[in-house]
């Protein structure tokens, strides 16, 4: 009996790898396992190797495993491509007609199975995925009977005939495996799940759902991997709430349309990835200058330039902080999990209105696209806070044709706001420097006052958990710092270090601007060595830490990965041990 298993299915894009993984995962979810799935894509639409890596566990997991226990291979390429990841003793369930063979050098068990033949027998060759699921479950020691309800549910809409043939296919996979490879593999037998079915989502979905729950009613966007999911979810759902998703001609139109909608008073967003965000740079400056609320989501992918669009990276951080013509107030939030992305999306919408400025919600491809089980999303935690927006203001008569003071200087730098279109509430805004009534103004004193108003208004920002701190020790050998999707892998690495009596605290930075220096200072002070773990080549968070916490600068070591693949726990563990050796 084991507590977790890493299962992978590989084949050609377009031949059902996605659905194989989905049925497998749905089944296991209903049995109460925690799941974490990550896909590998080829840069083509049909054909090319793809695989889906699903980790199954009796406890929550948020990282891909170091090694694969079971590989389902529909072609030889999948075996060759994934072989290096297989653990010694792993099982390879391969379609037998491809005459599968194993590369040399590792003790792995090959089980050729007539997946296609069995599927054809059951009704349709495409059901080979169902056969593979049946065989895989058998390996895990899970009887295919437990899955029948899932199959019924999934195919219910397609009629009884389809349901039944799928049930037959499922069963035949189990039967064939047991018949051809009767040997028991206790190292693959999964301890039972808790029977609780959980949400199974990708971070892009939790983000999109958070936006909807947070009152977003307008989105304008231009398609781009890996952010399109957000647009595709909201374009379906917004009309249900009277809202609109506009696919624009480009990202500049997307962001400026969202600024327009926000200015008029709707919670409006746009979402893209690095190349699109680059194009939005100028307009984000406009939102900052006109003090217009705006939420922009950046689902980071591998750059530079078009780079590797379906690969993981965290390399937009400094660009998101500093890109703008001139200096504006800007909030940058980086959720540290798919679950957090839900709540942070809502908070982003709130902060944008409270502080009347752009908010960048920075996620990454792994967080956005990894499919995972989640604890329930809590309706009670959904808040709508609109700050100084007065929807029904009592306005004195506007007897002179002078605009209202949209940029009134106040103690906290935030001006009262009401929406355009209200009697006696005529006002004007401009991207030029302006006075309190929003007219272009270049006088020195006014300029300074407006500039300070804008930049210092974030001083009153209170962000609930700017750093997700997991502090086990008052002082420790190590402080491991990361951001976005690396939380899971860092945490697993930390357990391995602790197992070797290396004490380590963890901190995932979630608020990147304004930088949570005060929160971080004691943490860094309490560690002998600080390792900053990032999916980029220049150590961007490490640079930021160095800038903001110079007193701890010498302790900071940067651990980076930039090949497009997410960190595995073992890689972090090994990297840190190297650091420790280098310094001891």
């Amino acid at each position, binding site marked *: 009996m084991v507590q977790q298993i890493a299962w992978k299915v590989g084949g050609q894009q377009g031949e059902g790898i996605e659905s194989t993984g989905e049925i497998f995962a749905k089944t296991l979810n209903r049995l109460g396992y925690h799941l974490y799935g990550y896909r590998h894509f080829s840069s083509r639409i049909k054909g090319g190797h793809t695989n889906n890596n699903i980790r199954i566990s009796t406890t929550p997991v948020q990282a891909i495993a170091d090694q694969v226990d079971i590989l389902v291979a529909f072609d030889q390429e999948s075996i060759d491509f994934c072989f290096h990841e297989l653990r010694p003793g792993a099982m390879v369930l391969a379609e037998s007609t491809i005459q599968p063979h194993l590369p040399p050098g590792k003790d792995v068990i090959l089980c050729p199975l007539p997946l296609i033949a069995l599927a054809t027998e059951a009704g349709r060759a495409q059901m080979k995925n169902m056969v593979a699921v049946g065989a895989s479950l058998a390996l895990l020691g899970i009887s295919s009977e437990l899955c029948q309800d899932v199959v019924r549910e999934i195919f219910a809409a397609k009629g009884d005939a389809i349901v039944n043939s799928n049930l037959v296919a499922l069963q035949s996979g189990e039967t064939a495996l047991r018949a051809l490879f009767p040997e028991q593999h206790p190292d693959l037998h999964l301890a039972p799940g808790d029977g609780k079915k959980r949400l199974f989502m990708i971070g892009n979905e939790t983000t999109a759902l958070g936006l909807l729950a947070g009152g977003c009613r307008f989105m304008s966007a231009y398609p781009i991997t890996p952010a399109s999911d957000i647009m595709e979810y909201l374009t379906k759902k917004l*009309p249900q709430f009277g*809202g609109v998703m506009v696919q624009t001609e480009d990202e500049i139109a997307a962001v400026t*349309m969202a600024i327009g909608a926000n200015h008029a008073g709707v919670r409006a967003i746009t979402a893209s990835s690095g190349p699109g965000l680059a194009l939005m740079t100028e307009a984000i400056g406009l939102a900052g200058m006109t003090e217009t609320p705006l939420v922009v989501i950046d689902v980071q992918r591998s750059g530079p330039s078009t780079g590797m669009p379906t690969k993981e990276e965290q390399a937009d951080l400094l660009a998101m902080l500093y890109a703008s013509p001139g200096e504006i107030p800007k909030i940058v939030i980086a959720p540290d999990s798919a679950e957090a992305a839900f709540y942070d999306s809502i908070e982003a919408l709130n902060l944008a209105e409270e502080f009347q400025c752009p908010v960048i919600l920075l996620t990454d491809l792994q967080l956005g696209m990894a499919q995972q089980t989640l604890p329930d999303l809590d309706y009670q935690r*959904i808040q709508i806070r609109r700050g100084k927006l007065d929807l029904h203001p009592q306005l004195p008569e506007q007897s002179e044709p002078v605009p209202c003071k949209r940029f009134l200087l106040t103690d906290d730098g935030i001006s009262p706001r009401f929406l355009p279109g209200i009697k006696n509430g005529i006002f*004007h805004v401009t991207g030029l420097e302006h006075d309190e009534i929003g007219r272009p103004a270049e006088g020195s004193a006014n300029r300074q006052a407006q500039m300070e108003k804008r930049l210092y208004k974030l001083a009153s920002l209170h962000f609930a958990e700017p750093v997700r701190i997991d502090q086990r020790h008052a002082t420790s050998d190590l402080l491991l710092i990361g951001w976005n999707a690396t939380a899971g892998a860092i945490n697993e690495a930390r357990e391995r270090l602790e197992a070797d009596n290396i004490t380590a605290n963890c901190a995932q930075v979630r608020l990147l601007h304004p930088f949570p220096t005060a929160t971080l200072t004691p943490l860094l002070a309490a560690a002998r060595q600080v390792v900053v773990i990032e999916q980029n080549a220049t150590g961007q968070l490490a640079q930021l830490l160095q800038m903001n916490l110079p007193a701890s600068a010498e302790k900071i070591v940067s651990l980076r990965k930039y090949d497009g693949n997410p960190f595995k726990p073992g890689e972090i563990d090994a990297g840190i041990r190297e650091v420790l050796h280098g310094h001891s």
Partner: protein
Amino acid sequence: MATAKDFQNHLKPNWCPGCGDFGVQTAIQRAFAASGLEAHEFMVVAGIGCSGRMSGYLHTNGFHGIHGRALPLAQGMKLANRALTVVAVGGDGDGFAIGAGHTLHALRRNIDMTYIVMDNQIYGLTKGQASPHSGVGFMTKSTPYGVIESPLSILQLALAAGATFVAQAFSKNPDELVALITAGIRHQGFSFINVMSPCVTYNHFNTYAWFTEHLVSLASIEGYDATNKKQALNTLLDHHDLVTGLIYQDREKKSYQELLHGYSATPLVEADLRLPQATFAELLAEFG
């Protein structure tokens, strides 16, 4: 009811004396008054350029954005609040150079709003470089040896982009301009009005006198039918676009708002932002 005066804000525009934009300003004020709406019901979204300062010289709501982006800003505002009467304004550089893509797509999207271009065939604010509508041979700061690209035919482009209301006017002929802006505001869809608005400082070729000599009123063309796209195009070709009046209007085609699936009949800004708990549960139930 509001009068043109109610749209004045007594600011002295920073335009050069004689600039064509003055005529556009007063025409907008008159047309706004003629529309029967009040000052607070308008939203004027302006580009960057001499022309872009317009939003600051009208007593209505105004948004003076960034160069070339008046249209997407304006479309966002209209979709957010369908009760606002949204008018975008800008220059020929703003709309046909840096903003050309937005202009085409706004025309085809057909959101119910109005776009007025102050076309002076030059970059005024940056002190006299060629615009996409400058004539061949025109010597400007950026073309000391003369423009060598043919000017874009703005009006034909608009028709090809699927425009439902295309008009051209001359800032020195305010009555026609007022009538066209009023009609544009009334039009159920995107109305585009190109106004020849001379730059007296940097364009000494396309002057008031030049336009007076060359512009032909469509009213003077017998049997001109503005609902006939083919006739519109052929007429533009015949007159090298130098016409004024309503060139084309499609009264049949529905606006974007009318076609939008599920779009709120009341202004979206008034929508309740909270999801009912049951709805939230339904949304969650899709993931499992």
